[in-house]
Structure formats: structure tokens, C-alpha cells
């Protein structure tokens, strides 16, 4: 084993996994995250930070296109794989380090992957063994309903991507450029399947269009728990902890988010539920006491009678009640009643606040809310 071998061995000790969650596989994704953490690996924050693209669930075509786009952005050494059942998780993950360490195959992939961006999409010379389907993804996939398409789309910029241009909609009446940024479906700490196409003035959302990309088979299913797994109170508590973990991660309190995720993992893997209940109440007290969190989350979402902090504490409280085999009264708050409610709350907000607002919606509710938009 030469120097390269030693480096490769060291390098694959802490693999960064970028997860693309297909709606309807919440439980599977939680299990995957638990396995990743147990191995001492971490979740990547962007393709540049990733070693592995892991598709959780069976991807319909829309997601395949998204996955191809992200896959092209991951630097070598890289590995693309998917997992569709809890039983397959450890086998899939165990296979990863060997693939990443395979010097020959990885350098072949690095040579053969598209080296340049042409015409706004990755050059199509796929010859790697992966299951990527064809040339990037076309404009047809971009559902831009409700957005201003009146701007001139000159393709003069580098790589055929047009330069940003201004429009009159700037809130302060300045001649500023607007840029478009799509949030989701693949973004760290983001609910599965949700897509927000934003029109940005600086980092403030001027306009937004929401859509929900449904998963396969379980189309619009209200209950995200797949068959064969206990849908009991413990699972429900784990789901609430998962939602709280998202909100805490987006609020930037990494250490507490880690604590909550550890509780969640303990619940779904069935390790010492009593101990988890104790940990949960400890975390709850820490969050309740934090003045900084109260101040940081105050007034989010705007013009809605419940705040992010209330939502967060409510989830944890409810999770604790589920663990104690008790049922907590639903607090009667209806926000959001539909994705449109979320969209309205996002308008005029900074991206960081917008992320917090989205994180206030329990991920498992997104599918149900998208139904409310159309029906």
C-alpha cells in the first residue's frame, strides 16, 4: 500500500453523503441517516462537499433528472447509488468505501465524465457505468408556472447561460438585477419533494412558485410510513424529532440538532427508549431556556399567530407525550393550510428566514398540503 493507498484509506473514513429523498420514504431516510451517523460519516451540504449521491426510495423520472444534474456536480472520487428498502441499507453503505477507494475506476470516471459545461447543461459524453440517463435535463423539466418569463433570454454569457438582467419589480425601485434560484427537491435539511422556484432581489425573495414532486406509487399518500414498519407512537415521536432536527439545523444550532438526531436514531433503531425520553426532556429544557433562540426566531413566520419557536417546542413536547404513551391535544393551529400559505409567508423574506419558514412545516405534511393547493 503506497502513499496513495494510505491517503485513500484515511479519506474514506469519513464519507460525505448527499441524500436525495424521494417523497414517501421518510422512514427509510431516517434509517439511512442513522446508519450514516453510526458509521461516523456525515451528511454533505452541497454536491461540492459530497462523495456519494444516495437516492433514498425509487426515483420517478423527474427525480432522475434532478439526480443527474447533481451527480454531474460531484467531484471525483464519487459514487452514485440508491436504496429502496431498510434491509438493503447496510449492504449499500458497506459497499461505498471500496468503490471510492478504487483508484483505477475513479480516475477512469474522472477522465470520462463531462469536463466542461456547454450550453447551460453538462456535456453529454456519458460512458461511465452509472445509471445516469442521457444529457443533463431539458428545460421542459422546469415548471415555471406563475413566474415572469418576459425577460429577454440572451445566451450571450459564458457557457450559454444568460447574464442577469434587471426588471421593474424591485421593492425599492432600484435598477438591480434579479436572479432565479430553485430550492429543493435536493437541499440539506429540506422536506422531500418540495420545490420553491424563487425570484431573488439580492437575497430577498421577490416572487416564488411552489410545486410538489410526488414520489412513485405512493403518490400523494398522506401517511408517509411504508408498510412493514411500526406506525406506533415511537415512530411518530421519531418523525417529530426529525422535523425538529431540520428546524434546528436551519436555525444554525448544530450541536442541539445533533442531540435531537441522536434521539431520533435511538427511537427508530429501538435502543433504550427510556433513556431517549430522558434525553428528550433535557434537550427540551435547553431549548426552552435559550433566550438567544427565542430572539433569533421571534416573528417567524411573519403574520402568522404561531412562531417557529412554538412549533419547535411543540414538536418536542408532542414527541415526549408519544413516548410517554400519552396523546397530546393538537394545539388547534392550522397554519399552513396549503402550500399557498407557505408561499405567501415566503414573499419578501430573506433566504435564511425563508428556510426557517419552510422548516416550520412538518416534512410529512408537505404532500398533504400540496393536495390542498389543487383541491
Amino acid at each position, binding site marked *: 500500500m503506497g502513499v496513495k493507498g494510505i*491517503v*485513500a484509506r*484515511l*479519506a*474514506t*473514513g*469519513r464519507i*460525505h453523503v448527499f441524500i436525495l429523498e424521494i417523497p414517501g420514504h421518510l422512514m427509510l431516510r431516517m434509517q439511512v441517516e442513522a446508519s450514516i*451517523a*453510526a458509521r*461516523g460519516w456525515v451528511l454533505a*451540504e*452541497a454536491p*461540492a*462537499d459530497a*462523495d456519494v449521491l444516495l437516492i433514498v426510495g425509487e426515483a420517478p423520472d423527474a427525480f432522475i433528472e434532478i439526480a443527474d444534474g447533481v451527480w454531474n*456536480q460531484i*467531484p*471525483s*472520487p464519487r459514487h452514485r447509488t440508491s436504496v429502496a428498502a431498510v434491509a438493503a441499507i447496510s449492504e449499500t453503505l458497506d459497499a461505498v468505501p471500496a468503490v471510492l477507494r478504487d483508484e483505477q475506476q475513479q480516475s477512469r470516471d*474522472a477522465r470520462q465524465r463531462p469536463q466542461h*459545461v456547454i450550453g447551460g447543461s453538462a456535456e453529454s459524453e456519458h460512458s461511465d457505468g452509472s445509471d445516469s440517463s442521457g444529457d443533463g435535463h431539458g428545460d421542459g423539466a422546469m415548471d415555471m408556472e406563475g413566474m415572469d418569463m418576459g425577460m429577454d433570454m440572451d445566451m450571450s*454569457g*459564458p*457557457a450559454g*447561460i444568460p447574464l442577469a438582467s434587471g426588471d421593474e419589480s424591485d421593492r425599492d425601485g432600484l435598477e438591480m438585477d434579479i*436572479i432565479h*434560484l430553485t430550492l429543493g427537491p435536493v*437541499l*440539506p*435539511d429540506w422536506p422531500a419533494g418540495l420545490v420553491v422556484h424563487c425570484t*431573488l432581489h*439580492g*437575497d430577498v425573495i421577490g416572487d416564488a412558485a411552489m410545486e410538489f414532486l410526488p414520489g412513485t406509487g405512493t403518490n400523494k399518500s398522506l401517511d408517509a410510513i411504508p408498510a412493514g414498519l411500526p406506525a406506533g407512537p415511537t415512530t411518530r415521536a421519531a418523525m417529530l424529532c426529525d422535523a425538529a432536527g431540520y428546524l*434546528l*439545523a*436551519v*436555525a*444554525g*444550532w*448544530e*450541536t*442541539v440538532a*445533533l*442531540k435531537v*438526531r*441522536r434521539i431520533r*436514531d*435511538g427511537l427508530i433503531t429501538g435502543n433504550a427508549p427510556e433513556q431517549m425520553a430522558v434525553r428528550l426532556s433535557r434537550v427540551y429544557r435547553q431549548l426552552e431556556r*435559550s433566550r*438567544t*433562540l427565542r*430572539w*433569533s426566531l421571534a416573528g417567524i413566520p411573519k403574520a402568522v399567530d404561531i412562531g417557529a419557536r412554538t412549533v419547535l417546542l411543540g414538536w418536542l413536547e408532542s414527541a415526549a407525550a408519544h413516548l410517554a404513551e400519552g396523546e397530546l391535544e393538537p394545539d388547534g393551529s392550522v397554519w399552513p393550510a396549503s402550500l399557498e400559505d407557505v408561499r405567501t409567508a415566503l414573499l419578501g423574506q*430573506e*433566504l*435564511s*428566514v425563508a*428556510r*426557517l419558514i419552510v422548516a416550520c412545516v412538518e416534512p410529512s405534511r408537505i404532500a398533504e398540503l400540496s393536495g390542498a393547493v389543487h383541491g
Partner: protein
Amino acid sequence: MDSVNGAVWVLVLPFALAAVALLAAAANAALDGRTRGVSTTSGWVAPLQESARLLRQQRRTLPGADSLLWRIGGAGLVVAAVLKVLVVPFGGFTFADLSVGLVWFNAMDVLLWALWWLLGWGANSAWSLVGGYRFLAQALSYELPLMFALTAPAIGAGSLRLLDIQDAQSGLWFVVWMPVAFLVFAASVVAFSSWGPFQTATGRDAAGGVIGELSGVDRLVVLAGRYMILVAGAAFSVPLFFGGGSGPWLPAGVWVVIKTLAVVALLLTVRRLFPTLRPERLAEVALVLIMPLVLVQVAVAAVIVVVNGGAL
């Protein structure tokens, strides 16, 4: 002989700083690992594993990226960190005995504004750009209190030279009668490193922000530079507030390192206790509440030196 000696020691400095930065990153990862319930050993080796991983990873670029400025932003973080430590005295010895050492530090932390923003700008990616501007918004909040906090030790010593500032604390450490200045300084160190509660520019909610499009060695340099800045800030607080190399039994240089590590440990603890402070919330508090507080601190220090005819 002295000058030859000095030149050799100067060459050691970047590597020594990098080593302490590695230690800080390892301690941080170990603490996080313990919270997450994975073994602490895997935390301690995490920075080494990450370094190996990033060395082995391919570098990326983006269409229309401003590569030159992007790389300057990355390498600049490391250089700025080392230049900060350059003026820190280790007892009687200092790598560069500038008569305006304090202003030198101030200049280096203003340089960080440009560097972080260039990192965000260079990538030509929406998330990175947003991160870069987040840093500027945050910098507007922390920089003014920081600059006033820096003047407090200068008033105490009646000098901008760090050796003088350190020696002026032979009676009483400045941290005792300038606690507000120290707290603001410590918070600013965290803020200009874009780390801990002030990490919005590199936040996970912005898919990594300014570092979101970096891979390979480029990313390694930035992540290392970030911890080096953090450690450099901690090292600088030692001559400013903790009496420099003064201490019993051990040589002065060792005391500086020990005190630096203690401040780093303090910063690692603080990170765990607070959620991220977003710039748009921070601005109001920083300018309307913190800044007047720091000015009161400066006034108190000024009145004390005038009445006392020098430091306490």
C-alpha cells in the same frame, strides 16, 4: 545572530499555527462526535480524514467563475491568519515588533471582509454570492464594536505596540477591568472566522454559502484558513487581555500557547451554547446596544488611566 534566528523562527510560524488549528478542529469534531453518540476517537481524527479526503478529491470550477479572485480569497485567509500572529509577543520575543501592532491586527481583520466576500463572489453561484453578502452584513455589525474594543487595551498601556500592552499588565490583567472589551473581542473573533454562532456566510442553510462550491485542495485551504483565523484571534487576545507571557514556572512562550488554547476552548464551548445569530437580527443589537456598551468600557478605561496616571 538574532536576525538569522528570527528568520528561521518566522518560517516555523505558519506550520505551528496550522498545527494548533488542526488541534482546535479535532477538539471541535470530538465534542460534536460525543454529542452525536459516535466514538470520540473518530472525532479526534476527523480533521486528518477530511484533509486526506480533500487532497484526494478533484478540484472544480464553474462557468464564468472569477478563478483568480476566488483563489486569492482562499489562500488569503491563511496568510491573514499568519500575519495576525506575526505581531503577537511570546514573552520578550516577537516575530515582528511593529510599533503599531494593534492597528496591524485591525488591518488584517478588515482584510477578511474582502477575502470572505471574494470567496463568495468568485464562484459565480447564487448561494455563494448570498453567503458573501451575508458576511458583509455581519461584518458591518461586528467591526465597529471590535475596533472600539481594541482601543481599550491601547488606552490602558498608552501604546499600540503589543510588547508595551503586554508589559502594562504586570500589575493586573486588562481582562479584569476591561471585561466588556474582551467579550466583544472574543465574539468578533468568532464572527470574522465565520464560525459557530456567526457562521451564516458559510451556513448549511445556504448549502455551504461561500464555501459551497469549493472542492478538493481549494476547500481544504479555506477550511484550514478558517480555523487558523480563529486560533490567531485567540492568540491575539493573550497580549491584549491576559498579560501575554506572564505566569509562574514555565517560560513565557509556553504560557502564551497555554492561554491561547484556553481561549480556544472557551470559543469551542460558546459555539455549543448558542444558535446562529442572523445578520439582520444582529445589526440592531450590535449598533444600538453593544456599541454604546463598548464605548462606556472605553470611557471607563480612559478615566482610570487619567486618574491613575497609567494602567492599574
